[in-house]
């Protein structure tokens, strides 16, 4: 039981990061129809920038989060206008290949800038732990959960009750009708790329405080956005949040009980099971095609 609770606690912390990552991924897909395979690289960029801001320059963490969020969001917007926009109308597959290209460029940039050596965990958050009976919850995990939840809630309010959020939902649902309202799809696409990247970047900063190693394998965390998003429903914001938590918790439980090698298996295994029972995920809509 202790073990179970311990693993679940760690899984919730991890899952809240996955939720943030999946949310950004789903948002970009929902609005722009692009499966962004550079999403993990956005996260990784956030983690590496956190190394510079927090470890090398010793800046305040709140400032660092805001600054990195801004940088990564700007990159997302720039990518939209510079690369994705001219590709509108190209086949899905070519667009996806372009995002893979972007991923490669980001990796190469990080390799050149930071070198190939693994870096350790960032210690910018309060260290130590909360003991509840036999349960040990590191402060880092708690803060991680709180920040991710805050990011998700802020995004949710933004998405559901602001004018620009409304436009984003409109574009996501019916591009033609949105254009007929005078909504510029490009502006909305750009905002979606910005926010999608921002979520990944902030997740990266937080994750850098959680993971023991920061290296070029971090992008794999971005790959976790796929099962998380698929489980929740590829076009559902709520689904991304739920999917992230499910993947995080089940991953830690599986690794704890069956060994580390089950970690990767479980996320994708779960995805296949969910897709067999509910092909569109928990919250996804059946009709993924736009009018």
């Amino acid at each position: 039981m202790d073990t179970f609770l311990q693993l679940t606690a760690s899984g919730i912390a991890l899952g809240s990061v996955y939720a943030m990552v999946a949310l950004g991924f789903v948002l970009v897909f929902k609005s722009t129809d692009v499966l962004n395979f550079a999403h993990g690289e956005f996260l990784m960029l956030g983690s590496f920038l956190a190394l510079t801001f927090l470890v090398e320059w010793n800046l305040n963490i709140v400032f660092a989060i805001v600054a990195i969020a801004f940088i990564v969001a700007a990159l997302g917007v720039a990518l939209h206008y510079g690369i994705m926009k001219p590709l509108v109308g190209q086949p899905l597959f070519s667009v996806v290949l372009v995002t893979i290209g972007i991923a490669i460029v980001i990796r190469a940039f990080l390799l050149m800038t930071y070198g190939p050596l693994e870096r350790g965990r960032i210690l910018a958050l309060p260290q130590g732990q909360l003991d509840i009976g036999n349960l040990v919850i590191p402060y880092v995990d708690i803060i991680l959960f709180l920040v991710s939840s805050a990011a998700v809630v802020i995004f949710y309010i933004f998405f559901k009750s602001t004018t620009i959020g409304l436009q984003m939902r409109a574009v996501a649902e019916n591009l033609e009708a949105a254009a007929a309202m005078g909504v510029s799809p490009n502006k909305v696409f750009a905002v979606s790329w910005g926010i999608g990247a921002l979520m990944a970047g902030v997740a990266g900063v937080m994750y850098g405080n959680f993971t023991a190693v920061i290296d070029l394998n971090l992008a794999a965390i971005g790959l976790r956005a796929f099962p998380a998003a698929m489980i929740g429903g590829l076009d559902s914001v709520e689904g991304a949040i739920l999917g992230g938590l499910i993947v995080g918790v089940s991953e830690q439980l599986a690794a704890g009980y069956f060994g580390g090698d089950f970690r990767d298996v479980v996320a994708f295994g779960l995805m296949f099971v969910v897709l067999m029972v509910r092909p569109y995920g928990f919250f996804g809509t059946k009709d993924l095609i736009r009018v």
Partner: protein
Amino acid sequence: MVAVTTIGVANPVLEIENVTVQFGGLKACNDVTFRINEGELFAMIGPNGAGKTTVINAITGVYSPNPGATIDFTDSGGNRHDLLGQRPHDIVSRGIARTFQNLALFDALTVLDNLMLGRYIHSDVGVLSGGVFWGKALKDELRQREVVERIIDLLEISQYRNEAVGELSYGVRKRLELGRALAQEPHLLLLDEPMAGQNLEEKQDMVRFIADVRSELGTTMLLIEHDMGVVMSIAERIVVLNFGQMIGIGTPEEIQQNPDVVSAYLGTESGV
């Protein structure tokens, strides 16, 4: 049944010339030429596949016509705009609103949100400040809400206000789409078969709404409609398309007497 205000000087709102839209070898509309004057209710008729919707799509920038076409629009301030090559969302902000033959509502959103999106072009908050809820953005939202509430009253859809659109009946959705176009306060309104798929009562309501809009707002309209009775009674002028070709243009009386129209189209319809 409708009081038509005749305007002394015919100010053109829309002038299109030689509009040809081609899909591969098919000319969906061929050399279409007409003008719509300010305050006019101009109807476009023709059998299915005649190219009517294509003309609307050409006007709104969804399709680009072949070279040699002219599409000029004069906005409420009297400024003339060449619409060719402009993107749909830019054309909309000049003052042209449309409805879709097959409905293009945001089904997952509420009636209110759909109408609020109609107000988008009149809202003056930017992308970034559109994300906050105070100051200018809040004031703007309240102003837009006022307009939307008036439309809700006009179209008698207040009981559906907070319902998701996907749940509503087809008739109500048609009405809502008209409302959303009205929320845009357009200078020119393009209505693509607004009465299609509705029962008699709903059709009558829709005719009434269109008439109200004309008398209250004086909006210039291009109406595509199949119901000949409706068209003949409310349109001032009519253009007839057949296989993409214009086969007649004129007042309802002229159209009814046009031999080409009669043989190609009206002759096949009963009840004219």
